């Protein structure tokens, strides 16, 4: 699929209250195009609570229930159960897609219990975490998704801990579908939403969302930063279905050796939130720690890929 093949209908309307270069609004536009009108949306407290526009107007052309911070998984469970009853009674012909749209604060931190509970019950919904790696809506405080060494307003010398990985936590729940996505790879993102729509049960899609004011880069660089994140290995694109992880788009190309990892320094330098790693003096220790982690992950993946190809070669060789 190409960009020009995306449906023309806009379900995220013009005139939203989003910041310039907002990754959340760009992501929601693609998601809505992929999911279509037969979707019920719940927005969990996040920047999206604001950028959908204040009462009495709305940029969201889907029936939308704004809900409290910790409720994503539970809200979806209620919407889905009620929709099942409406289908059973013939009020609805077809069950709508239940979509939860939450940020990383609402997913990694305050909302992980409700999400985990709903996933364990395999409630029938798509959960989206648009991950801008901080509490951007409240002015950029650290979250469980904030990467190591990143500046936030309450990690002024850089976060001391490594981020957790909720996508992998969702994989560990054994739900039918988990995917990660990037704004720089919209067709990959669209395809993942379209695939998720076809599946029943809990589906989790996490989109990295580079936030210009929070990460401190020009608002015209959102896509560029998103692409560098994938190219440098700081953000990995994959989908997990039937117990199998498949790497996609830019991440797949690196693993398969079609493109090389960009040094993480390029990604870090593109953002003011890592500025203290380069000025007043270069912080070799922390830059090196970040690079080594990425290298370790990709060396393992590349090795596994080569081994698999090798085994496939053996299997596919004609019998002697």
């Amino acid at each position, binding site marked *: 699929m190409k960009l020009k093949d995306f449906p023309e209908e806009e379900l995220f309307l013009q005139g939203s209250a989003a910041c310039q270069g907002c990754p959340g609004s760009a992501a929601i536009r693609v998601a809505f195009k992929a999911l279509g*009108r*037969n979707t*019920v949306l*719940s*927005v969990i407290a996040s920047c999206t*609570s*604001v950028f*959908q*526009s*204040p*009462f*009495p107007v*709305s940029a*969201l*052309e*889907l*029936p*939308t*229930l*704004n*809900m*409290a911070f*910790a*409720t994503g*998984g*539970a*809200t*979806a*469970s*209620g*919407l889905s*159960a*009620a*929709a*099942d*009853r*409406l289908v*059973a009674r013939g*009020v*609805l012909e077809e069950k*709508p897609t239940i979509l939860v749209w939450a940020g990383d604060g609402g997913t990694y931190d305050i909302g992980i*219990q*409700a999400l*985990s*509970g*709903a996933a*364990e*019950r395999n*409630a029938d919904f798509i959960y989206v975490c648009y991950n801008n790696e901080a509490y951007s809506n409240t002015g950029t405080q650290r979250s469980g998704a904030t990467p190591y060494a990143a500046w936030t307003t309450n990690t002024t010398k850089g976060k001391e801990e490594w981020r957790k990985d909720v996508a992998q936590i969702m994989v560990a729940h054994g739900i039918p579908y988990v995917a990660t996505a990037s704004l720089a790879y919209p067709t990959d993102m669209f395809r993942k939403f379209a695939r998720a729509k076809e599946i029943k049960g809990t589906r989790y899609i996490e989109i990295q969302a580079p936030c210009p004011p929070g990460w401190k880069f020009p608002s015209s660089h959102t896509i560029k930063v998103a692409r560098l994140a994938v190219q440098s290995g700081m953000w990995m694109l994959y989908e997990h279905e039937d117990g199998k992880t498949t790497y996609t788009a830019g991440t797949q190309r690196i693993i398969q050796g079609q493109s090389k990892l960009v040094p993480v320094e390029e990604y870090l330098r593109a953002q003011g939130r890592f500025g203290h790693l380069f000025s007043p003096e270069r912080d070799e220790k922390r830059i090196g720690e970040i690079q080594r982690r990425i290298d370790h992950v990709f060396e393992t993946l590349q090795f596994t890929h080569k081994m698999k190809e090798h085994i496939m070669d053996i299997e596919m060789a004609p019998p002697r």
Partner: protein
Amino acid sequence: MRLVETGNHVAAWGVRLARVEVVSAYPITPQTQVIEEISRFIDEGEMQCEYIPVESEHSAMAALIASAAMGVRSFSATSAHGLAYMHELLHWAAGIRLPMVMVNVNRALGPGWNIWCDHQDTLAARDTGWIQIHCASHQEILDTVIQAYRISEDPKVNLPVMVCYDAIFLSHNYMQVEIPSQEDVDRFLPPFRSLWRLDLHHPLTHGSVIYPDDYEEVRYSMFRGMENAREVVKAAAREYRETVGGYHGELVDAYGIEDAEHALVAMGSMASEARVAVEALREAGHRFGLVRVRSYRPFPVEECRRLLAGLQKVLVLDRSISFGMEGPLYSEVKASLYGHGDAVIYDLVTGLGGRDVTYEFIAENAVAALEGRLDAGSVWPSVRLNRHHLVSKSGVERLGSKGGAR
């Protein structure tokens, strides 16, 4: 059909007869039997209902709100810590102006795990915008759960209703109840209706950012809905009596008040004991009556004035305490009577954490009030020191002796 059942199982019968379609709940003693029984009804095909076994009460209330927003009749049940845990969403549920019903089994809050009767949990949720109806018998639990949907779904109200009843005394003890026929309940309770819902054909956005220019009107509309609920609660009680049978009073349930000179005021199971106390006091020549507050929100202000303002002494029984003030029911009764009549109003804070309150105890304190031996303000006449209180003895003693430790 006549059953001898626990209050919890009776509540489940009310949910079943109300044709509830989504139940979301989390186990907590002493409520758990409500959802166990509902779960059994569903498994045995007696209810066409989705049951969501959520992982917390916060999630129970979120799922309840969401299913109501989809336009489906929904129910939850909780108690004490569960109610406290969902407090944020109690506000959300009322603010969203959607009908829903929840049972709260009145129970004490920790620390010190106590699964027994206490009104602290419920009264701490007083200002969330939920209608609160307190029951005093098993039959009233059943009838009130059904009435609660009628009240909540009334277009003039559109606020959630909490049906409250006392831990153990009502939740776990067995009493006889008359289960009405489904046909009668269907005649009383029309299919689910709500002001708005999430509609795929008419998408709307609910609950986005709202500025000071509009917020106050939202709160005012809730205030109006709660005021309207006064008449709706009364009408529901009357029409239920006509259509289904069974009547437990309206905003209040008065007993022996017509010729009374003095009155007791109480809620829940303690009011049943107070009724026996009224008999005992009358036998001793003291003309007492009883006002049982059934609807705590909306509070029966007019009823209190009409029934209590002309009396001489009013003794309120509080099963909770507003720290730094007094018993909450006492405050409400006094506020209702302010500027109306000369009744002297007393308050017993007693029965906390399930401590037994006997009719003899109530009568004894009522006589003390008549004889001028009871201090004004909230007193704690059942507080006493045991040997095992020795560790905290000095602390308790520092509470002072005014109507307190003896």
